[in-house]
């Protein structure tokens, strides 16, 4: 067992020593998106709202890199201008998910016995609802909007992370250094703050990166269903929703924004995994 595990570790180390081209690509994409979010006019080639009916539904070309939509608006510029809102929703949802998961996960692992059991069961109950369904339930109550979308996606994905955090904290709680600290007579508050939480929560940085990618995918799914941000906006999911009627005549209206979302999600996953590998290496 241990021999095999050490060989896989070695294999991983070899992989890490190779130039991480995937990571560079992901980083490049993140920089590009950050610029698009802060100053979209620097990257856009057209006014994202300029109507140009003669140029409607044109395929990708030198003039319009991603083609044009039914009103002749430039899709590339719309994607660039939509980046801000899409990323904000993704980051916001990931933030909501992690905060909720942190509260629930640490209560389930650290609270006094009956309370911990109740919280633990509650997390298990929430986990029985698939993320998308939990999100839809919240939207049905609060009505569709960008803010609801953030909370819906955050709430939907939180139970999975809560379970993970609980596991991490329990593992830290049962470790040798906590036993040592207890033997030294440190107060339990001090042990939690100084030993358990820092060790259990270190992987959270990586989890957050992974969660941003996932949140962007989930929130664009909601917009695609017409239950998130509505079409006049150029948020990426809304672009997908708007292009649905033109799949046959103008497939790029669906394919390209979808590809952008997939690329961003992959970039977030890649960065998250490298962070995770880095953190695990640092532990030894």
């Amino acid at each position, binding site marked *: 067992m241990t021999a*095999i*595990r050490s060989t*896989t570790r070695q*294999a*991983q180390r070899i*992989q890490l020593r190779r130039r991480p081209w995937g990571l560079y690509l992901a980083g490049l994409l993140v920089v590009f998106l950050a610029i698009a979010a802060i100053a979209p006019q620097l990257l856009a080639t057209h006014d994202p709202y300029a109507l140009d009916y003669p140029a409607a539904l044109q395929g990708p070309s030198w003039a319009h890199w991603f083609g044009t939509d039914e009103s002749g608006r430039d899709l590339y510029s719309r994607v660039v201008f939509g980046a801000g809102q899409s990323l904000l929703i993704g980051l916001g949802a990931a933030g909501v998910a992690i905060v909720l998961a942190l509260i629930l996960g640490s209560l389930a692992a650290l609270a006094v016995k009956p309370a911990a059991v109740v919280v633990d*069961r*509650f997390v*298990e*109950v*929430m*986990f*029985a*609802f*698939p*993320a*998308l*369904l*939990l999100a*839809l*339930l919240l*939207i*049905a*109550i609060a*009505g569709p909007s960008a803010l609801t979308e953030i909370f819906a996606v955050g709430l939907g*994905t939180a139970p*999975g992370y809560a*379970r*993970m955090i609980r*596991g991490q904290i329990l593992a830290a709680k049962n470790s040798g250094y906590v036993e040592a600290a207890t033997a030294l007579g440190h107060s339990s508050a001090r042990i939690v703050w100084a030993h358990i939480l820092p060790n259990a929560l270190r992987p959270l940085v*990586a*989890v957050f990166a*992974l*969660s941003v*990618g*996932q949140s962007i*995918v989930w929130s*664009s*799914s909601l917009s*695609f*269903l*017409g*239950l998130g941000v509505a079409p006049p906006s150029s948020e990426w999911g809304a672009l*997908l929703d708007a292009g649905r009627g033109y*799949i*046959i005549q103008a*497939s790029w209206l*669906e*394919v390209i924004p*979808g590809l952008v*979302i*997939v690329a961003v*999600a*992959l970039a977030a*996953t890649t960065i*998250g*995994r490298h962070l*995770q*590998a880095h953190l*695990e290496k640092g532990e030894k």
Partner: protein
Amino acid sequence: MTPISSNSAVSSGSPVATRLVLEQAPKVPSVRRTSRLRLVVLTIGRKLISAVVVLWGAATVAFFAQLALPGDRATVILNIRDGQAQQRTAAELAPIRAEYGLNHPVLVQYWDYLRGLVVGDFGTSYQQFRPVTAIIGEQLGATVTLSLTAILFAWVLMVVWVTLTAGRGSRVRSLGALVDVVVAGLPAYWLGIILLLVFALGLRWFPVIGGTGLNGLILPALTLAIPLAGFMAQSTRVEFERALDQPFVVSARMRGMSDTGVRLRHVLRHATIPAVTLSGWALGSTLSGAIIVESIFSRPGIGSVLVAAVNSQDLPVVVGIVTLVAVFYVAVNLLVDIAYTLIDPRLKSS
């Protein structure tokens, strides 16, 4: 837990991580034969109780979600029904209050709701005046068919892909693992559209929309199956490569068994265990993924009912479908757990 498996679990928000942690509990040496039966019964009983507790919790969440709708409920129901937003007179509200039991205290309503669920009554739709079970019942078959077909496709794709690529040269291995990760992250709406463009519009192998029967089922099922396959492949691959180094594989090879034979007859059986434990999760994820897929392919099913109900805030229908999916999830998990308890020789007494 190997780093690889924990990564893959996190990236898709799955239960694998916690499951692997659970499986690492210390192995107790096998207990005496006589007490084994007692232990099995006890374990199954405990699992049954905990499943019931989870279901009760889910029903409670569902009930209070319906209360969370802002404003007076009877007014909300009437307005949803007429598609208006206005004040109502007491005379208008009285029959609605009576019909939905709103004049009782909340605790009585809660009790009635739970009692209803036990006998299969999910309440009455705000919009359609009909029982929720009737509305769901009409559409459930199509969605369950889609979901089960997708799981079947996912298993076939996953087994073929992992058997072909796991534990080969380093190039093939990393290609295999890369495809797993990329494919698992593909959003259903995008994959569905690509499949639609390539196979229905480009090659014309399948109908574009609708298409009853088998032909109309394949593309939607593939849309759900491909990410699921990638996802299951991540945990299967780790086990597969671990099993390839086990003594029983060496001994099988020494008996002269071919590489393919070893992979199919010995390694695969060990490697697929984590994917089997994901069955409950897979059912839940394909049922919720069906919402998007049904929307792309204009298929009937509970997904389209759900989207319409969310739009019109028809909460009993929304809550009914959400609860039903949770019930499926808990039931399948319970079955997997029970099967495990029966099979596993090192039953833990803790």
